[in-house]
């Protein structure tokens, strides 16, 4: 139970942080924000690893494998695409 409460507390605080930080993002960067935060959501990869790790049955291994693939696509793809987009804004900076 204790553990759950701690998790809950962390959840609430994280929500606060999220709202405060994200409301500061200007419209110009909303698309990168969308893909970027999306990439972050790929954190489920860690979950995937943790559970693929134990591998009791073949089934769970397969599930784990597919999960890892999916999550990695999300992460790598997300951050790369965001980087591409931001790169464009960046070039603007320099000129």
């Amino acid at each position, binding site marked *: 139970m204790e553990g759950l409460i701690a998790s809950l507390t962390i959840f609430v605080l994280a929500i606060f942080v999220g709202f405060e930080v994200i409301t500061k993002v200007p419209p110009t960067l*909303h*698309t990168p924000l969308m893909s970027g935060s999306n*990439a972050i959501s790929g954190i489920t990869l860690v979950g995937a690893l943790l559970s693929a790790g134990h591998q009791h049955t073949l089934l769970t291994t397969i599930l784990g494998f597919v999960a890892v693939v999916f999550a990695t696509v999300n992460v790598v793809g997300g951050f790369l695409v965001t980087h591409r987009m931001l790169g464009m804004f960046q070039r603007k900076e320099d000129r």
Partner: protein
Amino acid sequence: MSGALINLSYLAASALFVFCLKGLSHPRTAVRGNLLGALGMLLAVAVTLLDRQIVSFEVIFAGILFGSAVGAAFAVKVPMTAMPQMVALFNGFGGGASVLVAGASFLETIAAGSPPPARFLVAVSLTALIGAVTFFGSLVAFGKLQGLITENAVVFRGQQAVNAAIGLVCVVLGGWLVTTPWEPASYLALAGVASVLGVLLVIPIGGADMPVVIALLNSYSGLAGAATGFVLDNNVLIIAGSLVGASGIILTRIMCIAMNRSLGNVLFGIGGTVGTGPVPGEEIYEGKVKSASPEEVAMLFDTARRASIVPGYGMAVSQAQHAVRDLANLLESRGVEVEFAIHPVAGRMPGHMNVLLAEANIPYDKLKEMDEANSGFAQTDIALVIGANDVVNPMARTDPDGPIAGMPILDVDKARTVVVVKRSLSPGFAGIPNPLFAAGNTLMLFGDGKKMILELITALKEF
């Protein structure tokens, strides 16, 4: 102790994610921010891998390699104009991952025999539900935006009722899973039904509303991640998940406000009926539409002192951003003051136009947001509308019960002359005619956006 070390690294990763989002608060710091985010992800993953010297290490590794390859391929290939569906796709993968994760750990726990705690089961069913809805919802959204399935809203009578019913079933199945944890079928059933729900929830929504849906699904996948975190009792999952959840919800609100529609309305209201083919606008256009040639428009520009360019979804479709950049530079070299008026929901996702114009190297101080732009139109000689329609549709002000009623628009009609570049008189996403095209000070330049801009440039050069 190693355990503590790992958790510390997770904490560091979480902090990096926060800095990532903080970085996005300014173009100057954005790139670094994004890199920090990636770093955090790398840290979290690496630590997790180190944490588990395990048989299936190869499996995991194979998975990561394969996934990275696919992701990178997508990311490098996708044209800027296809961002919305790209995000949708990635988002779907995220959701999918969490369903599988929850499933795997559920199967394991029951395989281990020990009766799992209720909290675990609740979180598992939540993850299954949200994850599956996200996965299939996102895929449908992707399909619609990519044109794989009809952009139009697929609506049938009693749709809401059906969805409600299915939702109920999901709840029941969830209850079953929690009460009879030794029954793997329960999980499969739940995930399956949730998938159906995901599809049914999104198909009734018109293609142009997809960005809202995506943002929403994005926040779902975040929450799914957080739920997974509760399952595995893992803080970095909880934190990252909540951050994503928050951002998704905020973006959704922003879009809804910019379209002056309630979220409910987007999800199962008018949102369903728009885009279902153009409403005949004969009586409005009837003989009032003046069409012009690139040469005539070029002549206009020759005498103009101040021009403002209003891009819309059409610019994205026709990939006209580079041509537009050249036009702008040419005009400025002729001493015409040029600025860009960006409507918050121009295009198909928030900041869509900004990204395209940034791609074309247009300095972002030239991009004016709606309010600033509107205050300037009165002193503008030519408002050049490129593939925008709804965001410049005066009906938003005049017709109180149209689909875009009350949506704040760019008042281009205040400019001395309005030039609209589009291929036909067919409506935009809202599916309604646009009186602007018939206005006295409007000239239509019919044709593909990019083609027309290029012809305009050549025409200008000819003087």
